[in-house]
Every structure is written in C-alpha cells, then in structure tokens.
C-alpha cells in the first residue's frame, strides 16, 4: 500500500438520497483514527489515473465508534465509493485539514453556510460541538437544488427541537411547491442578517462549490465580516 495510505473497511452503508451515500468505516483493527470535526480523508484508487487521490469530508463526530464519509456520486471516485458495500476496503489517508473550529472562540456564534454535499463536514461539526460545548450557538444555513438532496434533514430537525442553541434554515433553489419552512431562493447574507448582527462574536464557515464559496465570501465581506472570521472549504473535482 502506498506510504501515507491506510486501509479502511466499510462497515455500513446508508443511502441518504438516490445518488448520495454515507459509508461508515473503521480501520482494519476496528478502531478509528483521531480526527477533528471538519477534516477530510483522501481516498485513493491506485488503478485510476489520479495518483493524488480525492478528498472526502468526514461527516461523523470524533466521539462516535465509526467514522463516516458522505459522498455524492458525480465522478469516477465518488461513483465507485457509492457502489461499495459492507466488507469492502478503501485505501485512504489519515484525517487531515484545517476546516475546523478547533481554534475558534467557544463563546462565538457559529454560522455554517452549506451548499449541497458541502453539508458533510458541518454534520461532523454540529454533532461534535453540541456534545462538547452545548452552550455554543450554532446556526446552519443549508441550500440544495431539490428537496430530495437535503440530506440529514430529519437529524437536523430533531437536533433543533432538542437543542435551543442550534437552528437550521433550509433553502431549495430549483423546485416549487415546497413545504412550509423551506425557503425558495438562493441563500444570501440577508438571510443571515435577519437573524444575526455582524459582530466579532460571529464566526462563519462556508462549504460548497467554488462559485458558492466565492459569492458568499464576497457577500460576507461586503456586510462587514472580517476576513479572519470566515473559514472556507470548496468542493471541486
């Protein structure tokens, strides 16, 4: 196995949507490596023409027994991962990355802005923060093209009911006739400003495709959010 690669075993697979799967994995010895919520692993398929591998965010929290990656089937790697079953092995790196709120202020309000599968690292961050620092306010703004693509909705709704410091707002951009509570437009900073005042106690994290991140970053800067209070992670092929 290539240096820097570990072997993970798929223990469970959950189809979150027709083309989105969560794979719960452990290392071969049944343990999971240490990680910080928001990090990712790089998956390798040595028989592909992509020696540098592709990164997938961890969608579970560090305190869980297995760790999970949530993948949307778009290209070669993601389709191969989505086709996997319990017992299959995955060659991947140990967790890595800096898209975490590990060094943030625990007293700050965390604003999480997700587009599509960009919600994956935020599920890890939400689960982890609620467990470790339940007093911290977290507000997730989650946008998707269709209702079916709003993964983890039941979980987020349940967390919102149970934890007064966690709120979630859903946006669906390409469907009409949406249930009450789902907002039918693209996410903008106005949606954030309806609920929060920009201050140094607001930390923003943005995760989605390149254009989403760019647009939200610029919009947050234009309403006065300091650069060092915005963290980003873009999903790109």
């Amino acid at each position, binding site marked *: 196995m290539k240096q820097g690669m570990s072997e993970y075993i798929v223990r469970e697979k959950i189809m979150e949507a027709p083309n989105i799967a969560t794979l719960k994995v452990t290392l071969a010895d049944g343990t999971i490596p240490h990680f910080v919520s928001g990090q990712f692993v790089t998956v390798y398929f040595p028989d592909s023409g992509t020696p540098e591998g592709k990164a997938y965010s961890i969608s579970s929290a560090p305190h869980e027994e297995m760790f999970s990656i949530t993948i949307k089937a778009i290209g070669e790697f993601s389709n191969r991962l989505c086709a996997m079953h319990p017992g299959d092995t995955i060659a991947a790196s140990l967790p890595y990355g800096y898209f975490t709120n590990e060094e943030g202020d625990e007293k700050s309000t965390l604003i999480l802005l997700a587009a599509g599968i960009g919600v994956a690292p935020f599920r890890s961050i939400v689960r982890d923060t609620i467990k470790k620092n339940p007093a911290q306010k977290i507000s997730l703004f989650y946008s998707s093209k269709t209702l079916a693509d709003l993964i983890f909705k039941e979980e987020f709704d349940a967390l919102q009911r149970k934890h007064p410091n966690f709120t979630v707002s859903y946006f669906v951009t390409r469907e009409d006739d949406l249930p009450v509570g789902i907002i039918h437009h693209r996410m903008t900073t106005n949606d954030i400003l309806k609920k929060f005042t920009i201050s140094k106690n607001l930390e923003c994290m943005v995760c989605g495709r390149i254009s989403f991140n760019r647009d939200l970053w*610029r919009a947050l800067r234009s309403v006065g959010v300091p650069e060092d209070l915005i963290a980003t992670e873009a999903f790109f092929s």
Partner: protein
Amino acid sequence: MKKVDNKNLCDGENWLYSPVVKDHFFHPRNLLLDDANYIADGIGVVGSPACGDVMAVWIKVDPKTKQITECKWRTFGCASAIASTSMMSLMATEHGGMTLAKAKRMTPEAIIDRLGGLPDRKYHCSVLGHLAIREAIEDYEKNLIRDVGQET
C-alpha cells in the same frame, strides 16, 4: 523561414489572467531560489509532483508579537500557482506582518480576491497557497513545543 506569429510569444499579452496575476507571475515577491543558508522558523511543503504543483514556504516569526516577519517560497507549478504563492506571501507580510492567528485564517477566496480572480479550474492553486502557509505555521508551532520541552 516561417514568420513568427506575435500572438504566440510568451509575454503574457494575450493571457486570460488579471493584470495582478500577470504582475505576480512576472515579478514574484518573496521568492527564495537558494534555501541552503536560509534559516526559517517554520517550513511547509504541499502538493505533489504527480499532480504538478509543489509549493514550499519558509516563514520567520517575531517571537514576541507572533507576527510573520518574512514569508519566502518556491513553487513548481503554473502561472496561477506562482501568482497565488507570491500573493499569499505578500498578504502574510504586509503592514508589519499577519499574526499567526490571522494567517491561519487566510482563505483561498481572499488570495484569489487580491489577485483579481482566477479561473475556477485554477482554484486549487490558491488552496495550495493557503495550505502551504498553514503547514509552515504548524511546523513553527511544533518546533516551539519541542524547544520548550528541551529547555525544561
């Protein structure tokens, strides 16, 4: 003799890059070509020859203020990669230098914004710039812990 087509000359005239990207490619800031005698407080290397972009970053840090006083680099990669690392090094050291806390929060979006934009297919170049300085800072912080451990 075949007539030279001026449009093919490598002077950047017809490149679809912003003037800032071209400036940082043709006049890179803080480039370190010979690191043999350069003593850095932290070093970060990211990327892989397999995918074509490799960046090395060397930083010096004021121990009292925790500001980055120098940020040198060398990049093996395309114009976007070179311009991204050059701009990253400028952002890290201007106005007296970023604190480590602020430098850790430097995002690809901030680098690209200062460059006047990059094509989406070149986004990963600014990601490498962001990761390279994070690695250099992490190296500095690990060295600090190790040095404190050795003193005690």
